[in-house]
C-alpha cells in the first residue's frame, strides 16, 4: 500500500482515539489533521498548498448565504425556550390531553415534534423536555421506561422534522457532494435546503404518527404503565381559558407553520424564513413576559402588523413613486409604512421586555455560542477533509465503496453502518462535515438519489443517538433525569423506539418516493 494511503488511514484512526481524550471535537479533528499534514510534508508526500487554502475555506463559510440561517434558527429556538413559550406549550398540551390515557405521552411527542422545528441539535430538546415533562410523568405514575423512552425519542425528532439546523447543514454538505459528483460527469439536479426540508417532511410526520401509535397501543396493552390522572393535579388548577390555549398553543404553532410554509411554498428562502421565525419568537416571548397590558398589546399589534404586511406585500403594488401612482396606491403605501413603524416599535418593546427580565443577554449569548460551536466544527472538519483529500483519501474511500459487493445497495448499507457507529461518539454536525463529503459523491455516482440519501442518513443518525449504551440522547437524558430513574430503565425505554426507527428507515429505503415525492412537487 502507498504511504499516502497509510497516512490517510492512520490519520482517521488517530483522530478517533484523540477524540476520546475529551478535548473539543473541532480542534481535535483539525489538530490531528495538521500533525499528519506536517508528517506528510516532511516525507514529501503532501503538498502544503492544501494547508494554505484554509483561510479561504473559513471565508467561504463567512459568505455562505445558506448557513446564515443557522444563527437565526438557533436564536428562534433559544428565545422560545428561554421565554418559557416552549414550557407553556407542553403544559397546555398535556392538560388538554389529561383525560386521555397516555395523554402526557402524546403531548410530549407532539411538543417534541414542534420544538424540533426550531432547534434540532440533540441535547436541547431532550434536556428541556426531561426537565419539564419527566417529573410530571413520573408523578402521574408513568412507568419510568415509557416516560424516558418517549422523551428521548421525541427529543431526537428535532433532527428530522424541518426546519432543523442539521438538515440545513446536511443540505450544504450534500449539495457540495452533488456538485463534486456532477463535476466527475454524473449529472443530477441541484439540491437545496428547501428540497431537504420537503424531503424530510413526510418521513418526519410518519415518524410522529408511528410514535403516537405506539403510545396508543401501549395504553391498551399495558394500561398500568400510563395511568390516567383522575384527581392528581388537575383539579387544583383553574380550568384552561380559551385565550390561554389560543395564545400558548396557537401562536407558536402558527409561527412554526408560517416559517415552514413560506420555505416549502417557495415564498422565502430558508434564510429569510429563519429571520422571520427569529423575529416572531422575540415578539412572542415579549408578549409572554410583558408585565403591563399596554406593552403586551403593543407587541401583539406588532405581530398582526407583520401578518398584514405580508398580505399587503403579496397583493398590492406598494412601490414608492411608481409610474402610475394613484391616490389609492399612495394611501396604501403610507399605510404599509405605518405598519412597519408599528412592527419596529413592537420589536423594540419586545427586546426591552426580554432585557428587563434578564433574558435578552443570556438568550443571545447562548445562541451565539452555539452558532460559534457549530462553525468551529465546520472549520475543523474543513481542515480535516482538506488533509484527508491531500493524501488521496477520497479516492481510497471511493475505491472501497466500489469494491463492496452488491453495488449501490452494498455501498449504501456499508455507509449507513459506519455512520451509525460514528453516531455513538460524534454529533450530527461533525459526521455531516467529515463523512458526507467523503462518501456522498461516490454514492451519488453509483446512482443514489441525493435527497433520498440525505433523509436516510438523517433517520439513521437519529436512531444512533437513541441506541444504548452510547446514544447521545440517552446521555443528555441521564444527565437531566432525577437520580431515582435507573439507567437501565432509560436503556430499555429506548429499545421499542429504536425498533420503530428501524421500521421507518426500512420504509424509506424501500419506498424512496416517501422522501423524493414532495421535493419534486415543491420545486415545480
Amino acid at each position, binding site marked *: 500500500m502507498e504511504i499516502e494511503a497509510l497516512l490517510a488511514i492512520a490519520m482517521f484512526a488517530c483522530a478517533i482515539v484523540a477524540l*476520546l481524550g475529551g478535548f473539543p471535537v473541532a*480542534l481535535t479533528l483539525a*489538530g490531528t489533521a495538521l500533525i499528519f499534514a506536517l508528517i506528510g510534508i516532511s516525507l514529501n508526500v503532501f503538498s502544503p498548498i492544501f494547508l494554505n487554502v484554509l*483561510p479561504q475555506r473559513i471565508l467561504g463559510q463567512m459568505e455562505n448565504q445558506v448557513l446564515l440561517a443557522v444563527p437565526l434558527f438557533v436564536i428562534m429556538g433559544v428565545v422560545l425556550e428561554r421565554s418559557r413559550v416552549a414550557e407553556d406549550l407542553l403544559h397546555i398540551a398535556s392538560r388538554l390531553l389529561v383525560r386521555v390515557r397516555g395523554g402526557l405521552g402524546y403531548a410530549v411527542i407532539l411538543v417534541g415534534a414542534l420544538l424540533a422545528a426550531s432547534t434540532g441539535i440533540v441535547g436541547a430538546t431532550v434536556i428541556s423536555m426531561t426537565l419539564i415533562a419527566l417529573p410530571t410523568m413520573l408523578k402521574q405514575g408513568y412507568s419510568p421506561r415509557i416516560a424516558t423512552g418517549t422523551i428521548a425519542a421525541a427529543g431526537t425528532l428535532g433532527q428530522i422534522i424541518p426546519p432543523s439546523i442539521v438538515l440545513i447543514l446536511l443540505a450544504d454538505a450534500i449539495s457540495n457532494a452533488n456538485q463534486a459528483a456532477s463535476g466527475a460527469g454524473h449529472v443530477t439536479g441541484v439540491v437545496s435546503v428547501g428540497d431537504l426540508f420537503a424531503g424530510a417532511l413526510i418521513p418526519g410526520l410518519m415518524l410522529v404518527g408511528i410514535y403516537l401509535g405506539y403510545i396508543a397501543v401501549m395504553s391498551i396493552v399495558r394500561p398500568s404503565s400510563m395511568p390516567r390522572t383522575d384527581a392528581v393535579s388537575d383539579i387544583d388548577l383553574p380550568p384552561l381559558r380559551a385565550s390561554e390555549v389560543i395564545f400558548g398553543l396557537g401562536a407558536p404553532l402558527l409561527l412554526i407553520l408560517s416559517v415552514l410554509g413560506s420555505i416549502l411554498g417557495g415564498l422565502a428562502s430558508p434564510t429569510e424564513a429563519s429571520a422571520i421565525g427569529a423575529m416572531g419568537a422575540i415578539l412572542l416571548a415579549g408578549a409572554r413576559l410583558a408585565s403591563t397590558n399596554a406593552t403586551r398589546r403593543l407587541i401583539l399589534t406588532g405581530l398582526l402588523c407583520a401578518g398584514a404586511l405580508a398580505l399587503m406585500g403579496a397583493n398590492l403594488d406598494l412601490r414608492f413613486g411608481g409610474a402610475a401612482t394613484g391616490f389609492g396606491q399612495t394611501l396604501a403605501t403610507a399605510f*404599509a409604512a405605518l405598519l412597519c413603524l408599528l412592527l419596529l416599535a413592537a420589536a423594540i418593546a419586545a427586546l426591552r421586555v426580554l432585557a428587563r427580565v434578564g433574558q435578552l443577554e443570556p438568550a443571545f449569548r447562548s445562541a451565539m455560542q452555539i452558532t460559534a460551536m457549530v462553525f468551529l466544527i465546520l472549520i475543523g472538519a474543513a481542515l480535516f477533509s482538506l488533509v484527508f483529500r491531500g493524501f488521496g483519501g477520497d479516492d481510497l474511500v471511493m475505491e472501497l465503496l466500489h469494491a463492496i459487493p452488491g453495488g449501490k445497495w452494498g455501498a449504501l448499507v456499508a455507509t449507513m453502518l459506519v455512520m451509525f457507529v460514528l453516531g455513538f461518539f460524534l454529533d450530527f454536525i461533525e459526521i455531516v462535515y467529515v463523512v458526507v463529503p467523503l462518501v456522498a459523491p461516490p454514492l451519488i455516482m453509483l446512482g443514489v438519489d441525493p435527497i433520498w440519501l440525505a433523509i436516510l442518513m438523517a433517520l439513521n443518525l437519529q436512531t444512533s443517538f437513541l441506541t444504548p449504551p452510547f446514544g447521545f440522547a440517552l446521555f443528555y437524558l441521564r444527565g437531566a433525569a432525577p437520580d431515582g430513574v435507573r439507567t437501565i430503565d432509560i436503556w430499555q425505554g429506548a429499545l421499542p423506539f429504536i425498533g420503530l426507527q428501524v421500521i421507518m428507515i426500512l420504509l424509506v429505503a424501500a419506498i424512496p418516493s416517501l422522501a423524493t415525492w414532495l421535493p419534486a412537487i415543491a420545486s415545480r
Partner: protein
Amino acid sequence: MTSELAQTFLQLGGALEWAGLVAAPLLLLPLATLAFPGPLGGVAARLAAVIDRISGAALSIAIWSGIGLVLLQVAIIVLRFVFRVTAIDIGPVSIASPALNDLLLYLFAIGFLFASASALRDDGHVRVDILREQMGPRGRALADFIGTHLFLFPVMILVLLASRGWLAQSWRIFEGSREASGLPTYFLFKTLIPAFALLLILQGLANALRAAAILRAGPTDAPSSTRSAPRTPAL
C-alpha cells in the same frame, strides 16, 4: 495616495507580525508555570482573568451582531417584498441592496467568529465525553493542557500564517466588495479571520494556564475554581 496609505498599513502589519513572534514564547507560559509555580503562579492567574475579559468583550460584540442580524434581515425582507425597493436613499446617502447584503454577512461572520473564544471559555464547544466523566479533574485538566498545545495553538497559528500573504494582497489594494455597489471594506471582512484565530489562541492560553494550576495543585486538593462544573450542554 492610496498606495502610500496601503504601504503604511502593510508596515503596520509587518510590525504586528514581529510583535506576534516576540509574544509567541508566551504560549510556553503554562509549561513554565509547571516548572516554576512560585513566581509565575500569580502572574498566570491574573493573565488568565484578563484574557477571560477580552473574550467576554468579543462575545458582547457577537451578541449585538446577533440582534442586529435579526433586525437587518427582517428590514431587508420588508424592503424587498413589501415595498420592492432595491436601495434606500436618505438625502445624498444611498444604501444599495448589495451593501445591505454585505452588512448582513458582516454581522453573521462577526457573530460566530467573535463568540468562539468565549464558547471555549465557557466550555461550549462539543466534546466527546464518554471517557471524560471518569477522568476526574486532574485527568480533564491534563487533556485540556495537552490538547491546547498539541491542537489549538498549531491550528490557529496555521490560520494566522496561511492568511498572511493573502491578506496583505487584499489590504494593498483595499479590496472592496465583489458587487459593484457593495461595501468597500472587503479587506476588513477578511481580517476577521486572523482576529478570530488570535482570540482563540488567547483563550487557549488562559485555559492552559488554568489547567496547569490544577495539575500543580496535586492529586489531593484540586482547586474548585476549575471549569469542570457540569457543562451546560450546547442546545
